[in-house]
């Protein structure tokens, strides 16, 4: 049962999106701010993510504890995340609590940035950095990504380093907020069981007074060349490798056929890498993904295996990626069936729809109904894939490894 799509823009530039569906038992709401690690200078590294935490730490009218307790009282499933390009605040609630949730989340978007809370939360961020240091897979992806993109901001670290976060100041964060959290750089979206008219009316009341200012982001396509490198660590039991090469951006039309191709090559089950590596017990994990970013993008191929098998696993993965594509079998139709089922299943819950709605608008300033996405995927032919590959070939891989010292 598809929901009804709505869209409007407030005078201050805040985009409002909605997909109403009275059959849902809940409603989801979120603010999608188009800012992240790529919008930071080297000395600001980590500030987007730290700021995301600070939005839960108080506003002119609410303390951090007030916010936590109110989220608890609303029975809200609320959280936030920061990536290289987006900072997203979201919550799912039962319909009766939607309006109060909207008011709370809107208030949080104008944070106090209290200096004492800032110092306290800095400790939490440093703990989060330590936590990820103990996760080898994360360590490899972050360091490989930084090296691959070189001076291009797409490779910036989301968490920042211990040194960069330690050096952040409250006033520096405030200056960053004042440059990035303009209503015209934010999308407010809701999905599920709620009233669109009241949602817009309340958005005007809660967010209409936010001052607009211009926000820019340079989105050059990364065209550099990287060689790759090997990282090592003591006491590592398992080995990892990731290969990067240029891929489609979030705006390139090639992303549709190439997402079908990455399913054929590197889905977690039944893909060509699965049969070549996992089915044979040579690796315990293998995947291919197309990581689409704002104005640029990359392919990634990942393998993890026992250290003494990594060489063999990587060389087999490279062979699979280099094989000429043969669509004589049913691979193409099978991959499309898998993708369509996922799109429909993920779109069934308000939270799933919220994420696709908000993200699509942030990147492409439009919304595509679920049915249209499904038809688009089903229409893809092997010629579309071959055509897309002439622009984004599966070659020129930069290889990164993390192995025991």
């Amino acid at each position, binding site marked *: *049962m598809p929901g009804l799509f709505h869209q409007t823009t407030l005078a201050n530039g805040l985009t409002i999106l909605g997909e109403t569906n009275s*059959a*849902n*038992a*809940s409603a989801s709401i979120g603010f999608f701010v188009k800012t992240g690690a790529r919008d930071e200078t080297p000395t600001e590294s980590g500030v987007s993510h730290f700021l995301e935490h600070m939005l839960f730490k108080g506003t002119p009218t609410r303390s*951090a*504890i007030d916010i*936590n*307790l109110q*989220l*608890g*009282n*609303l*029975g*809200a*499933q*609320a959280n936030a995340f920061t990536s290289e390009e987006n900072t997203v605040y979201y919550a*799912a*609630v*039962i319909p009766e609590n939607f309006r109060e949730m909207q008011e709370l989340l809107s208030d949080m978007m104008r944070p106090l940035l209290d200096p004492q809370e800032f110092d*306290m*939360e*800095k*400790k*939490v*961020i*440093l*703990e989060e950095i*330590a*936590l990820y*240091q*103990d*996760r080898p897979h994360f360590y490899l992806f972050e360091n490989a990504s930084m090296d691959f993109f070189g001076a291009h901001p797409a490779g910036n670290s989301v968490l920042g380093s211990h040194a960069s976060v330690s050096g952040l100041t409250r006033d520096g964060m405030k200056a960053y907020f004042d440059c990035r959290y303009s209503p015209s750089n934010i999308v407010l979206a809701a999905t599920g069981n709620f009233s669109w008219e009241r949602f817009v009316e309340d958005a005007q009341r809660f967010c209409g007074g936010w001052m607009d200012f211009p926000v820019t982001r340079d989105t050059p396509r990364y065209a550099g060349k990287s060689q790759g490198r090997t990282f090592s660590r003591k*006491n*590592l*039991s*398992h080995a990892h490798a990731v290969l990067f090469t240029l891929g489609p951006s979030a705006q390139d039309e090639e992303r549709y056929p190439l997402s079908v191709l990455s399913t054929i090559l590197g889905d977690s089950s*039944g893909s060509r890498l699965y*049969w070549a590596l*996992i089915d*044979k*017990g*040579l*690796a*315990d994990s293998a995947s291919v993904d197309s990581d689409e970013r704002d104005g640029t993008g990359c392919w990634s191929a990942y393998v*993890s*295996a*026992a250290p003494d098998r990594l060489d063999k696993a990587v060389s087999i993965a490279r062979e699979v990626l280099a094989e000429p594509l043969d669509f004589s079998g*049913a691979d193409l*139709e*099978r991959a499309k*069936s*898998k993708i369509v*089922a*996922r799109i*429909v*299943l993920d779109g*069934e*819950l*308000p939270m799933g729809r919220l994420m696709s709605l908000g993200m699509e608008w942030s990147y492409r300033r439009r919304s595509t109904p679920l049915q249209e996405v499904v038809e688009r995927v089903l229409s893809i032919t092997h010629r579309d894939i071959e055509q897309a590959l002439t622009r984004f070939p599966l070659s020129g891989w930069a290889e990164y490894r993390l192995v025991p010292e």
Partner: protein
Amino acid sequence: MIHTKQLPMGLSVIVEEMEHVESVAYDLLMPGGLICDPQDMVGSSLIFAELIGRGAGTLDSRGLSEAFDDAGIRHGEWAGTDRIGCSGSLLATKLPRALELVSMMVLQPRLPEEEIENIRSVLLQDLAALNDNPARRAMVELNRRFYPAPFNRSSLGEAQGLLATGRARMEQLHAQVAKPSQAILSIAGRVKAADVFAEVERLFGGWGGVSAELPSFGAISPHEYSHIEVDSAQVQIVMAAPSVKFAEPDYYAGKLAVSLLGSSMFGRLFMELREKRGLCYSVYARHGSNTSYGTVTAYVGTTPERAQESLDLLLGEFARLQGSVSEAELARAKTNLKAALVMGEESPGSRAASNATDWWLLRRVRSLQEVNEAIGAVTLEDVNGFIERHPFSPCTILTLGRAPLDVSASIIRGGR
């Protein structure tokens, strides 16, 4: 609307009709799993659960995998502590195909010998990778010390047991575990119960035999403290204490008490350790339960110089709970539990799983209203009574990091 039917050979079929979705989810549960593995073959159930997906009936390994993919079925066959399961989610129109494939895997798996080595190899790599995941490793090591054997086995199996497993054990598992007398098939989504019952009877009608008997659960005797030395950035601190089982009178009082203590953002642990002191990123307490036991577990991960303070505070909050819970805290915990229930109503996957769990533990499915009323009826007195009877002490504590911590003071405080 929920419908149930027990087929003559014992299989219980539960169907929840959901009109507002396009999809359907299924869970087939069979008693068995890691606690039923012989002492020298711990982990053979994990190999079995993988192996039934590597060819069944007329389909070889690739044919079976492609049949699932062609129908867009997300599926998994798995072995847990006390059960082996087949789960999946898909567009509702493909349910007959999914049930057919599941029936083939359970009734006529090919169990190809040549695949055992490949599966073993992946599982041994998973086991080795545990060393690189300190938080997960700490929980595995905590369970090993806290539960009586064989309930203390790792969900990843044991290297020796995986190595000792051969084809004969696979045949034995098929003969002993893939049986219907106590099995449950739970389905939720855009389906008609009558159609599902007819399809299940047609596909599973020839299935017969007595389900595996689960070993009985010995007494938990928490021991005090152990430390595992690893060179990591953070120290992992975990603890476990005995609590109430599902369906015992104190169950919701216990669940609410632990929720107001350790639930994400509004719980006391989050407030005291993270919000007020910035000691950690991740801290929580959870209440878990199955047929045999109920357990409270708690976790905090922090850097070495702040580990002692974190441990002291964690246990201190448990000790402080008795008599200190306010009406507002209890109300908040109730609201959250109820809201989570309502939101779970939207998802076929969570409905199928929840109905299956009810049947597994109670042999009936409770309505949302019944659960809501049970939660609503819990009073402060109930919560205090629960804590009196289950004081979170003695408990088992484990740390994983560069150096051991001092637990003497905390245990005395925690055990008053």
